[in-house]
């Protein structure tokens, strides 16, 4: 148990933070605070009014909407999924439904005495609209939004001690048995109601051999990477057990150690945050990998103050508040008793009547990680702050190169990025940019993925669940949506961006170490080629530059002839240029050959003439009927070489090649020159 208090000082290192300002419900005479997870509403009730705030997207300044309801006790309250009705549990035997427009009221009562209502939730399954969980089981009702009637469609009989439900998972778990560790589960998804096999959770026995009893607060339903997990606190064993839900099975998948008897969880960006409340620290787990090791060291949750919009960890030292202090206008006490942790990513402070959204500090996490390969993999899985993750990835890639890490390490890093990109293209998360490219034909630099990400969130969750249900595979059958709203963005780095923001940006600094850079680019190209991706041709131009700089002409030749460097006009010109700079005729010829192969007749002929091969150039022009090259080029070259026979021949060929050439002044000039110098050469 290595949790020390050392890090909870004013040093204020943290990976997870809440951020000022919070959503504040300063409603006088408020009697209760509720959270409606299906609609993501924070609900504050007074004796006769209901105030509700949208929490998604999280905006502290959002005004509440107000509804009036009849006075009376409110045990729980939830808006219907179309938000046209409000359901209120009045007592353990009565649920009242209000239509928000017509103010129509519908009452539902259960048999008093024999059973009592534990709670209720709205459902979007085709079978029913409202589910009421009672000690005797679960009743499923259909009702229309006008609240004309509430019709019982099905009853799931069971002895229920308590239950837990989240709209995100559409999963209801009904606890029964003496220890409350036997569960009946149902998923009420758009595809219908699926019954889970009955299962038991593991509970270690205490020393006194008394059997501990599981409570609803010990159970957390979370969704990570589209998989549904149930986390169960086992206080005796000090373990957090993980159960994963498949279509036909519930499988325990390891356990996490816990360091606090009070525990809560959040999920942010598919990462599991386990709050060790007694120790006042958060531990981050990434359940994507098989390893159950935490992503980073346990650090306290931090409250960040007024420093404005900048949420970067660079501001860590500027933070006016550390986790322990409470001097601000808001009387924040970290992990105080009044806190309720709302899955996925909210904290409701009942005492202060404020709602916090939890944020991850990706920069801090990456700064504290030394294994860059797994860090990059980690960052590539981030979706919430995709752009930041992407920038961090680029920064890490740059740093690994600039620090001259061994090529194998850099290779791994590049492989991670390229594979992730390839995957995201295949998965369609990178699609938008690709389309844009297709229309714009040239890769545009400014094509930021974030511009297009903010789509109306809508009900894509439903579609996804349905899809997952219809695919009969065991894997991921119970699948809530991974892509939650505004999370369409992907941190994937395209090869072009890798070139632009990594290779091109380090080239100048590393020109003396071009061999190292070439080794890395080779690996990059290998990675690209293995994934069958394309890359900006500038990387080829750069490769030539670097190879020529380090005088590795043999390799330059192999790269070119084997088409590792894909032929293009720009590449050919770089070869010509590098050949000229190094006075290496072989490299120049590679460039010429490439121009010819690309059928860039005009450039090929001009370059040939430049190199003094004017006869060959003219022959080529004649063969391919190229007339765009200035005729004076040939004539001047021949005249400069002092070969009158050539000059005469060129005049003759040009007169055949270019119609009307004999009428041009050029013809007269050179014809005159020819006759002046030697009358013996016949034209």
């Amino acid at each position, binding site marked *: 148990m290595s949790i020390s208090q050392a890090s909870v000082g004013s040093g204020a290192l943290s990976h997870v933070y809440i951020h000022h300002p919070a959503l504040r419900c300063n409603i006088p005479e408020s009697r209760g605070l509720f959270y409606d997870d299906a609609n993501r509403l924070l609900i504050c009730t007074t004796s006769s009014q209901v105030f509700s705030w949208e929490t998604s997207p999280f905006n502290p300044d959002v005004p509440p909407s107000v509804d009036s309801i009849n006075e009376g006790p409110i045990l729980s309250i939830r808006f219907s999924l179309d938000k046209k009705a409000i359901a209120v549990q009045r007592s353990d035997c009565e649920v009242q439904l209000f239509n928000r427009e017509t103010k129509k009221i519908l009452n539902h009562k259960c048999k008093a005495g024999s059973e009592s209502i534990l709670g209720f939730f709205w459902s979007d399954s085709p079978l029913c609209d409202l589910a009421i969980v009672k000690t005797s089981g679960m009743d499923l009702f259909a009702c229309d939004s006008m609240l004309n009637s509430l019709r019982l469609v099905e009853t799931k009989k069971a002895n229920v001690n308590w239950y837990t439900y989240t709209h995100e998972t559409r999963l209801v778990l009904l606890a029964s048995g003496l220890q409350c560790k036997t569960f009946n589960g149902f998923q009420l998804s758009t595809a219908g109601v699926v019954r889970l096999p009955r299962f038991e959770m593991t509970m270690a026995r205490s020393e006194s051999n008394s059997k501990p009893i599981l409570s609803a607060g010990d159970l957390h339903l979370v969704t990570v990477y589209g998989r549904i997990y149930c986390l169960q606190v086992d206080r005796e064993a000090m373990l957090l057990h993980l159960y994963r839900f498949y279509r036909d099975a519930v499988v325990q998948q390891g356990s996490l150690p816990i360091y606090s008897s009070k525990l809560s969880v959040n999920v942010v960006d598919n990462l599991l945050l386990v709050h060790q409340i007694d120790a006042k620290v958060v531990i981050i787990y990434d359940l994507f990998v098989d390893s159950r090791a935490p992503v980073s060291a346990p650090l306290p949750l931090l409250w960040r103050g007024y420093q404005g919009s900048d949420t970067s960890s660079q501001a860590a030292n500027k933070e006016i508040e550390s986790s322990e202090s409470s001097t601000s206008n808001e009387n924040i006490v970290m992990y105080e008793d009044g806190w309720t942790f709302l899955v996925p990513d909210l904290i409701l402070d009942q005492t202060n009547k404020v709602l916090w959204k939890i944020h991850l500090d990706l920069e801090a996490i990456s700064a504290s990680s030394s294994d860059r390969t797994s860090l990059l993999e980690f960052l590539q899985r981030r979706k919430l702050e995709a752009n930041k993750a992407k920038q961090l990835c680029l920064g890490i890639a740059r740093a690994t190169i600039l620090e001259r890490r061994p090529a194998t390490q850099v290779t791994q890093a590049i492989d991670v990025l390229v594979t992730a990109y390839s995957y995201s293209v295949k998965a369609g998360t990178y699609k938008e940019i690709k389309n844009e490219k297709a229309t714009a034909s040239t890769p545009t630099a400014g094509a930021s993925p974030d511009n297009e990400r903010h789509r109306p969130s809508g009900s894509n969750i439903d579609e996804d669940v349905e899809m997952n249900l219809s695919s009969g595979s065991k894997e991921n059958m119970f699948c809530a949506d991974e892509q939650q709203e505004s999370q369409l963005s992907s941190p994937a780095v395209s090869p072009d961006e890798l070139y632009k923001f990594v290779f091109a940006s380090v080239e100048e600094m590393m020109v003396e170490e071009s061999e190292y850079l070439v080794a890395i680019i080779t*690996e990059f190209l290998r990675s690209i080629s*293995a994934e069958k991706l394309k890359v900006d041709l500038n990387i080829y131009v750069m490769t030539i530059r670097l190879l020529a700089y380090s005088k590795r002409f043999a390799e330059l030749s192999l790269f070119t002839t*084997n*088409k590792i460097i894909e032929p293009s006009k720009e590449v050919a010109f770089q070869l010509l240029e590098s050949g000229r700079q190094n006075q290496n005729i072989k490299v120049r*010829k590679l460039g010429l050959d490439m121009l010819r192969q690309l059928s860039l007749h005009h450039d090929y002929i001009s370059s040939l003439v430049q190199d003094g091969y004017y006869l*060959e150039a003219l022959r080529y022009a004649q063969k391919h009927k190229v007339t765009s090259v200035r005729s004076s080029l040939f004539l001047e070259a021949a005249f400069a070489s002092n070969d009158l026979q050539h000059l005469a021949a060129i005049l003759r060929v040009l007169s055949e090649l270019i119609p009307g050439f004999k009428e041009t002044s050029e013809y007269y000039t050179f014809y005159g020159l020819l006759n002046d110098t030697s009358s013996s050469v016949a034209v």
Partner: protein
Amino acid sequence: MASMSSGDESLRLCMFDLRRGQTEGQELEKILFFYPADLDFSTQLSVIGLSEGLITFTRLFSPEAACEVIEAERHSHVFYEAEPDIWMVMVVEKNKETGAIWRIDALRRVLKEVHSLFVMFHGSIRALIEKEPTGGLTRSLLYPFITDYLSTFQIWSLSEDCCCEFFVGKKLQLPTFRETLRERGTVQMLTLARDTAVEVQSLVQVLDSCAGSLRCHSMILFQDLLVSTTLSADDTVDLFTFAVMRLTSKALSSDTSSWSYLRKGPGSSEISSRSNLAPVGSIDSLHSRNGNNMHHVIRPLQNDKWTKGKDGFLITDIWGLETGGSPDSAIPTIWLQQTQERMYLLAYQHKSLTLLLLMPTNAIVNGDLSISAVKQQVIEDASLRILKIEENISRGWGGENAYHIKGYRYLVVDNDTKVSRSSPSGKVTTLAKESLLALNKLREEVDSEKSRAKGQEKDMEICIRAKNNVWVIARVTRGKELYMALEKGSDTLLDTTDAVGRFSNRYCSGAFLMD
């Protein structure tokens, strides 16, 4: 087949230094090498004296490039100035009947090749002479080296009764007109698919960094074809030649097979031992003359001396046994022409793939590097990739006749990169003798044109219809050469140039523009 036994006068090969033995009675000092070694000194001196005289005479007119060739009635004298004032002369007997028809430049390339190889292993001859002015060291190195080299031209006569006399059982076969569609001193490359090429280059980067921060050089061969190199074109040619001669999977397997075949016959093992002893004996005679008999002579070209070790690295005892002296002294070393660096040579083989790794010797002497560490590194970092690449290449490899192009018998030479490609020899043999002779003649013409151009790039296009209706074609343009024989009697000149044009566009990326 053009062949000759050493007993007659069909081949003389000598190397001499014009700066030595200029006073009377000291003439023998000039001789650095003479083949056959058992020829009496007066004959040796007469050959060298004639050559020297011709060189001195022709230098009057052309100081830069003296005598290249003398055509006598019965012999051709081929001259090659290997290093300043160090000349190699080859005298070959002309014999139309035995098919001993040569192209002079092809013979000169033999001289050039053996010299380049010698320099690669031992450094320049001039440097050796300067190091040890008696010339004893130089001779003791040259004799076995060139003899070993010439043995690659030996073909074995299988008749039993020839065993009595040294070298009689073997025949030397120099490159004749039948090899006119070959170019000595060039490498043959394997064409790779792009993804394989990327994998190969990635492997090259791994190999290059196998010695930590010290950059190594590497060369990779698949069978007898070059896959990749980081060396300059000249160094590549030399190392490639050596590898094909002694190191590649083919060279290793052909060694064992030919030897085992020979050993079937009685007394043949005696031949091998004798043939190995004979040149050494002649060295001894020279040694005693020069009073230097101490040196352990390394014979890098010695045949049948390389085997594949368990770890995949090729091992040889040519450079000594690893047990004796410092652990790295037994590692082969070579000199690089371009950088004048001495390098350790490590060879690794997996099936048909041979990898040569070169590391600067001084780094190891300084203790920055240990060979065994490098070997370990190669096995750790590269062996998986090597496995994969070998598989990839083997899968895509079209076999012996991969570069056969139907209807064409061709040779393409790129003088810039020193790369050539030609029709497979099995296909070339289907050409009529007349066709080959015509092409040989044409090449000879082109050679002389080229030598007249003195390094200037010539542009030539020659199409000739020979007696047997074959078209022989030479096209030289900007450092690239194409030679071709088309045995389709009915074709017109237009058809022929069209055919060449098609070939050029399809297989040479249009390098040879035909009018």
